[in-house]
């Protein structure tokens, strides 16, 4: 059997899929985002869990994205996300703004298999005014007329892309304390994961490792991609490559510069072989 690669996993993501991506500080699989660019994915609908970073900007710049739902998009210390901003200005993507706990709550509703979750706050924000799918009702556990509260529909992504530290022979992946990844894995129809390395055995048999695992129940396929979160950080494994992200931010200011970035770091044989 040929082992999986980021490119073989990316080949299974259909155009138009609703794709959940964690932000730069929470184990996104940038390797899979690069593989989706190489496969020329189209009309993807991205979900920032709960915000969006480098991988999202890369996919937007490469023309893979039709829609995005997120609570914010940025490159952190390197500033605004340039291709996200440009696509928004050009009208080539549809943006649905949210707020972080709303995205967590919508995924938690899907995780529990219930139609909605309630969330405090938000009332009086223009986010709500632009979300016809979010409803305000009087607290049904109160007197039934006062105490307005927001209801958010369950949200089940088609595919979640995450990068774990390691995977074992039982198909479990280890993500440490970033438990929002477990929520998105539970809520998504499919999870495709890249990892730094494979380990023997079953991590769920190890009391110290088990709490940082996502059970293989939820994981469809795993591919090894060393430094698969690069240029963003991976827990205590490696830091954020600020110089590279600053270089990206500079190049991606223009479409031509972005194309050059793709040629140099995403589309070449070496870039593919390195994944």
């Amino acid at each position, binding site marked *: 059997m040929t082992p999986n690669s980021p490119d073989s996993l990316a080949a299974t993501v259909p155009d138009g899929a609703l794709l959940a991506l964690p932000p730069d*500080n*929470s184990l996104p699989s940038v390797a899979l985002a690069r593989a989706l660019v190489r496969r020329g994915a189209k009309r993807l609908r991205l979900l920032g869990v*709960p*915000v969006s970073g480098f991988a999202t900007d890369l996919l937007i710049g490469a023309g893979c994205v039709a829609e995005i739902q*997120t*609570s*914010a*998009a*940025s490159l*952190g*210390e390197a500033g*605004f*996300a340039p291709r*996200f*901003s440009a696509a*928004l*200005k050009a009208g080539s993507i549809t*943006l649905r*703004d*949210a*707020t*972080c*706990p*709303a995205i*967590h709550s919508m995924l*938690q509703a899907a995780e529990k298999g219930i139609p909605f979750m309630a*969330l*405090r*706050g*938000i*009332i*009086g*924000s*223009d*986010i*709500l*005014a*632009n979300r016809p799918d979010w409803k305000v009702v009087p607290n049904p556990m109160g007197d039934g007329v*006062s*105490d*307005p*509260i927001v209801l958010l529909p369950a949200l089940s992504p088609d595919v979640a892309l995450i990068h774990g530290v390691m995977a074992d022979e039982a198909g479990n992946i280890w993500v440490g*304390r*970033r*438990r*929002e*990844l*477990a*929520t998105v894995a539970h809520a998504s129809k499919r999870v495709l994961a890249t990892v730094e390395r494979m380990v023997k055995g079953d991590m769920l048999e190890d009391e110290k490792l088990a709490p940082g695992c996502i059970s293989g129940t939820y994981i469809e396929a795993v591919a090894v991609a060393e430094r698969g979160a690069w240029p963003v*950080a991976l*827990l*205590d494994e490696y*830091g*954020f490559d*600020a110089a590279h992200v600053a270089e990206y931010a500079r190049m991606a200011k223009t479409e031509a510069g972005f194309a050059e970035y793709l040629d140099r770091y995403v589309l070449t044989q070496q870039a593919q072989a390195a994944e």
Partner: protein
Amino acid sequence: MDMTIKLEERLAATLARLILDPAAPPARHIAVGAASPIPAAACWLVKKQGHPVRLSLLHKRTGNPFSEGSRELFDLTGQGRIDLFFLGGGQIDGQANLNLVGTGEWPGKSVRFPGSFGSAYMYFMTPRTILFREEHSARVLVQKVDNISAPGVSEPGVFRRGTAQALVTGKCVFAFHPDRARFSLASIHPGETVDSIRAATGFDFDVADDVPQTPDPTEAELALLRGPICDEMLETYPEFCARVFDRKLAA
């Protein structure tokens, strides 16, 4: 010790004094979000001065305070376990409405900012919020924000634990009065006047007859900021520490 005070040091010390304001609800647990080195320095200053406060720094890559993922911050805040949070905005108006989405028509057709993050929730659910924006200009401090990420005050009957306590900028400190949804000038940083603040501010605010100057950080505060606080911040904010404290993480 070099007693030349950098603006960042003055702002950190000013924020620390607001955190310790005895008139405000107690700050036992403070959370600090992304890209907030000056508020983070202020919180460390409070802690290193010996005040019992728990600091949860959201963007700590190693040793992150949350073991249930980033959702845990919002769950804690929902229960009222986070006492104080810092927010800013691309635009902030005279009623303390925050705009983090952008200018022009929704969702920021003119200039898009990154987005609202958790502001539409945190602003309601935290007993107090300190607003911080170093740039003090009529572009940022506007009469009315173009889009509301998070409202400064809410209608009666809408669940809300607190509002802004104050707005700290590179020029002054404003106090916020939720009863009348207005700011008043609380103190002016050195080099500024009431007139220079008015000229740089797009919204109306109240001014008392005698507005004090923002006090300088003390020698002890400066020593803490430049020493042990810089040590704590080097991993998360390397560029800030290099620029302000002239210190780099050992390779």
